[in-house]
């Protein structure tokens, strides 16, 4: 009788494969495999009501190998990064980072439920990458024009307020060593694609 074998667990089914994929894409140690489905995360989440699945359900779907359903879920895009779930999780799962990991996979495959979230991030990061700094005005203008044109008139007092109070720059701030930053990010992109 062989009761113990010293070999890694075999990744057999789609669930295990997807779990491994998400885990490997998580920045730190996800501990996602430890989930006991208690719902601490779904109970803690301030935006749970807007999610189509609770985080807990997302983890169950990952284990079930429902890749498409997970990537097309709005759940990770509703995550506010408030970390309530992370500190309360009895299994110390890095839930927020798992949400980021799902988003990076979805982003790569353009498999998200709505392009509002990805676009906002894209615009924000596009500017940050270009200038080395984020730029509130450019971001807000482009973002609202694209997704909430109707909200824009309502927003005018706010934008005006920002100018009036000297809280927004008309032009983006730039860092000096943009070339260096771009070189770093280019190499990082290559490495990320190679993962």
């Amino acid at each position, binding site marked *: 009788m062989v009761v113990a074998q010293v070999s890694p667990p075999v990744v057999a089914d789609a669930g295990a494969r997807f779990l491994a994929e998400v885990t490997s894409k998580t920045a730190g140690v996800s501990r996602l495999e430890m989930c006991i489905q208690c719902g601490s995360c779904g*109970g803690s989440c301030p935006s749970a009501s807007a999610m189509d699945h*609770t985080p807990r359900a997302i983890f169950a779907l990952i284990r079930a190998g429902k890749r498409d359903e997970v990537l097309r879920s709005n759940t990770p895009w509703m995550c506010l990064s408030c970390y309530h779930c992370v500190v309360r999780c009895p299994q110390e799962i890095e839930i927020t980072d798992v949400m980021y990991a799902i988003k990076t996979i979805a982003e790569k495959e353009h498999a998200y439920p709505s392009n509002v979230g990805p676009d906002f991030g894209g615009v924000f990061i596009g500017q940050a990458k270009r200038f080395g700094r984020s730029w509130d005005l450019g971001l807000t203008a482009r973002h609202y024009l694209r997704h909430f044109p109707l909200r824009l008139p309502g927003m005018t007092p706010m934008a005006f307020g920002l100018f009036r109070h000297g809280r927004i720059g008309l032009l983006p701030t730039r860092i000096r060593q943009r070339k260096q930053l771009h070189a770093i990010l280019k190499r990082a992109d290559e490495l990320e694609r190679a993962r």
Partner: protein
Amino acid sequence: MTAEHNHKPVEGEPAAGLPAAGEIRIGVYVCHCGSNIAGVVDVAEVAKWAAENLRDQGVVVARDYKFMCSSPGQEFVTDDIKKYGLNRIVVAACSPHLHENTFRTATARGGLNPYLCELVSIREQDSWVHTDKAAATVKAKAILAGGVERVRRNEPLSPMTVDINPATLVVGGGIAGISATLELADAGFKVYLVEKDPSIGGHMAQFDKTFPTLDCAACILTPKMLTAGTHPNVELMTWSEVEKVEGYVGNFTVTVRKKARYVNEDLCNGCGVCQEKCPKKVIDEVFEAGLGYRKAIYTPFAQAVPRTPVIDRPNCTYFEKGTCKACEKFCETNAIDFTQEDQVLTLEVGNIIIATGYDLFDARKMPQYGYGHLPNVFTSLEFERLSNSAGPTNGAVVLRDGVTEPKSVAIVHCVGSRDRNHNNYCSAICCMQSLKFAHLVKEHTDATIYDFYIDMRTVGKAYDEFYQRILEEGGIFIRGKPAEITDVARTPEEEGKLILQVEDTLVGQQRRFPVDMVILSAGLEPRADAKELATRFGISCSFDGWAIEKHPKLDPVATMTEGVFVAGCVSGPKDIPASVAQGAAAAARVLGRIQQKKMNLEPIRASVDAEHCSGCRICNTLCPYNAISFDDVKGVSAVNPAMCQGCGTCVAACPAGAISGTGFSDEQVLAQIEGLLRIGADGLRPHRSGFPTTHHEAIEEAVRA
């Protein structure tokens, strides 16, 4: 070699009667353990190899057999000792934990000293952890060769015999300790029952009902408490604590501090008038779990055993200000004695049973549940008192204001348990306890009950039926660990309520439950002083702090220290039936010892070579069994052989190499390693350097030269 021939020995050389002086003659016995070993290791090949290749090491005969631990298997050993004049035995089989004793006994039956038999494990360390048959067979040979090298250096040892003092110390007067005490006392032996609180009874005395039968806890506990308090064989020492334990199995000397009660136990008749007249009211943090009051002179509860009260000195007006003495004035028997002092007593006992129980997880450590801030969040122990007819509300289940009956109650499971932020283990009793609370709330109020659980664990006789009963009674069960409890309302319906926010995981949605009262089923924790306690009694405890049993399954009430037993929650969360059973089991183990009157101690133990000891005192604090003492006059340390359990901690720690352990000398261990290395992974002898490899060999070679 087929199975039929398995028992046929592979002989190295014919038997030649008695061995020549100094000649070492070893018998090797390789066990199949059914297919446990033989399924992976070619046992016949191992035996054959030993007979042929270890002849120089003294192997005279080697056999393999299906079950070496069976009678025929053992007979090979006993018979061969006579037939071949063997003076060393090596059995390659399972872990020594299991059958070392079996084969030592067989060796002794054959007329050899049992310690000249060595058991090496080719099951746990080989066949069970490998699949490659060829490699596992080579490894078995290596392990066997190590055993052969080692056994050559084994010495005959003789066990030490000690008398067993028939008196027993039981520490902790909860239900486990009481049950152990009564078993021993009824069997006719003296028991000292030491309890730190003013009365015995423990946590069980705080409860109203017990699951699943809903017996009244007091009704079933009080008779046992009374018997323990009045039994002629029991010396009850409440308001007392064990300070020091010295000695060894059969002969412990225990120092107990009997704290000053300021009430003469012989004079007091327990009338209770002093408690009535005492002007100082104090929150009772212990028995009433902080939910009720007691006086500065008090017995924790009406049925307390003994009935003699104690004066809580820090809170007593007389001790604080120098005047009052109301209790003294009204005492009819002149039992009050403000001059009393702590007494330090010495007890001589043969065995010790530790039944010190548990602490409740401190729910303040989970601020998201608001305990301590939100008045109507209660802990399980608070609720026990709340629902108890002898409790602060006379059994009325009401909110913290003392009057309002709740219309809705939430019960939360797993508070501080199954949670890596706090305690990673399941506290075992909380599910059933929560179900009991659900029933008690129903019994006392009309409230709607919401019960929040992760997994419902109702493992026990009639436990799941109890769950079903609560379902019938209309308890509403929501599967989900509550995320937070708050009083911040979002809607008018939530105003003035406690809102419990949770994901209903079966629905997959976040829900908010406005309720009037929350009961946190807090988990069980080791006592805050568990680690010091373990050190004091020379037992070990896990990282959490639960006492470690000698074997969790096969010896659950013994510890690694001879003569010290554990019962009840001290070794982990348990319900009442299990605690009672453990108390009785520990008593049975002690009775066995007492009946034997004498006991043999394993001769595997450490000793200090006084000549080499420099008195650096590094070993002094290390002994888990307190067996090491320091002789100030000679300036050397010494090991008490009766207390030593042969663990080897001091042997490893001694920087001067002045402590050695019988059966585990450096020489033996190095010889075993040498034997293990004798065979390479390919089954060939490894290349050996030209250097002498052991101290022993160095001398031998030098001598030869």
